[in-house]
């Protein structure tokens, strides 16, 4: 990797959300205990979306770091055609990553399901990529092109248990959204006044920058006349 960021860092701030709280609870759990979950996810991807790895065959030696910034672990995707791996680690320290993508978990999932446009969230600085851009672009296109529907994948994986489990998941989703809304309200109460003050300062700064541009222009015009 030409520009390695080998230690866990936070160029994207984690949102104040239930995922952040869940991440805190997961903090003491050793990553190896989470590994079976990601082995299962990769198995589903290989079975239901083989085209993802097919679109990554040009990068058999890539090591792609995925950093859900609101969770206390990171993932390493190695898209080797014959032996792909998705491994969970505490951080990227000493890992030879080719490229890294960082963002809040909910955003990464929405990107995976094609509900968000990758370029748009990257251009708006909600998502950070580092290292080999080509590999990240290939991964984005491969995942987006697969048409992933996590609910359908889940249903196909659990078979006859799908209906009750999906109903439970929907209730869980409803509770999650309620909690997320409540936490957003708490956040607003805590930092709202500070944000208003910052907005006012930013507006004033913009005004001043505009005045500087005008002054520079008139100065140049005066210099050209003399």
């Amino acid at each position, binding site marked *: 990797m030409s520009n390695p960021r080998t230690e866990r860092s936070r160029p994207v701030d984690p949102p104040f959300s239930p995922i952040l709280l869940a991440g805190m609870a997961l903090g003491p759990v050793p990553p190896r205990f989470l590994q079976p979950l990601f082995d299962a996810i990769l198995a589903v991807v290989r079975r239901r979306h083989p085209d993802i790895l097919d679109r990554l065959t040009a990068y058999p030696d890539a090591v792609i770091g995925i950093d859900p910034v609101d969770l206390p672990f990171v993932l390493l995707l190695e898209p080797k055609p014959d032996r792909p791996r998705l491994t969970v680690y505490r951080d990227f320290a000493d890992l030879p990553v080719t490229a890294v993508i960082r963002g809040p978990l909910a955003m990464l999932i929405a990107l995976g399901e094609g509900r968000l446009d990758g*370029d*748009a969230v990257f251009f708006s600085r909600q998502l950070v990529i580092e290292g080999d*851009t*080509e590999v990240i*672009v290939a991964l984005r*296109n491969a995942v987006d092109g*697969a048409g992933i529907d996590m609910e359908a994948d889940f249903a196909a994986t659990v078979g006859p248990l799908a209906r009750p489990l999906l109903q439970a998941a929907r209730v869980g989703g409803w509770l999650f959204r309620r909690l997320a809304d409540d936490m957003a309200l708490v956040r607003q109460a805590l930092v709202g006044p500070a944000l208003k003050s910052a907005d006012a300062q930013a507006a004033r700064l913009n005004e001043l920058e505009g005045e500087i541009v005008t002054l520079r222009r008139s100065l140049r015009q005066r210099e050209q006349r003399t």
Partner: protein
Amino acid sequence: MTGLSRPVELVCPAGTPAALRAAVDAGADSVYLGFRDETNARNFPGLNFSRDELATGLAYAHERGTKVFVAINTFPRAGAPELWHKAVDDAARLKVDAVIMADLGLCDYTARHHPELRLHLSVQASASSAEAIRFYHEAFGIRRAILPRVLMVPEIADLSARVPVEMEVFIFGGLCVMAEGRCSLSSYATGKSPNMNGACSPASHVRYTEKGDKVVSQLGEFTINTFGAGEPAGYPTLCKGRFEANGRLSYLFEEPTSLNTLSILPQLIAAGVTSFKIEGRQRGRAYVTNVVKAFRLAVDAISRGETPPDIDLDGITEGGRQTSGAYERSWQ
């Protein structure tokens, strides 16, 4: 407003099979796409269609009354046109509705070997005069010209009266401000030609580096831009770089801005435009769904004689900004 005397075709991008389905489901009249190689001008990693994917995509689109066009719009390497010829042969075999191309030799090959195949002249041909468009029509039978993004609406109206082909214009998406098909800026910076290798500013040569609260974008050895805290970023093409010249830091050619013509669609139709093209085969299916739905609503409103609705597309534009570009030249 009165309704349209003829329908306007909405031509939408698809970089992957999922994006094709998204475009069709969102109301595209036609979808354009490319093969997974350097025969098309969006030869990006992980993007585009295999022959099997095209066959499946064609079936999906045709079942729903949507046409499929294949862009074979790069210029073949000297002495090695086989890849491009095979692309044309396969497109014809799979019965696509049209091929989009720019190279004279490829137009000639297609007209001779597949006279039944409908030919559209790519924007890569940069044909902006009636004489040029008439030439392609008379020599190769092109049925539609996709106009370069340098013409004003009255100039399009003038062309319309003087050419015997349909006219297609870009209505939304990334803007190319150069002479398309002839620009060498990306080749200069990366050694890869957008016109022959199929990717302007290829991702293999792009780097983004976080420096504190700033992000620096590079293309090859060139620093293209430094975005401050919270400032919307852009893709590092040389033509949209922010450089220092005469002591001033500015966008020398063009700012990272997206084309959006929602407000001038009726004028474009009045100028004789028969099809509206949305740029963005390299974008995801969320982009395709949002933009196609927005313009479907707008075109349908115009068809009913209504004013097109004002739809907010800020969230999916480059740089968070929009322009009607050369169509209005509001900067003049």
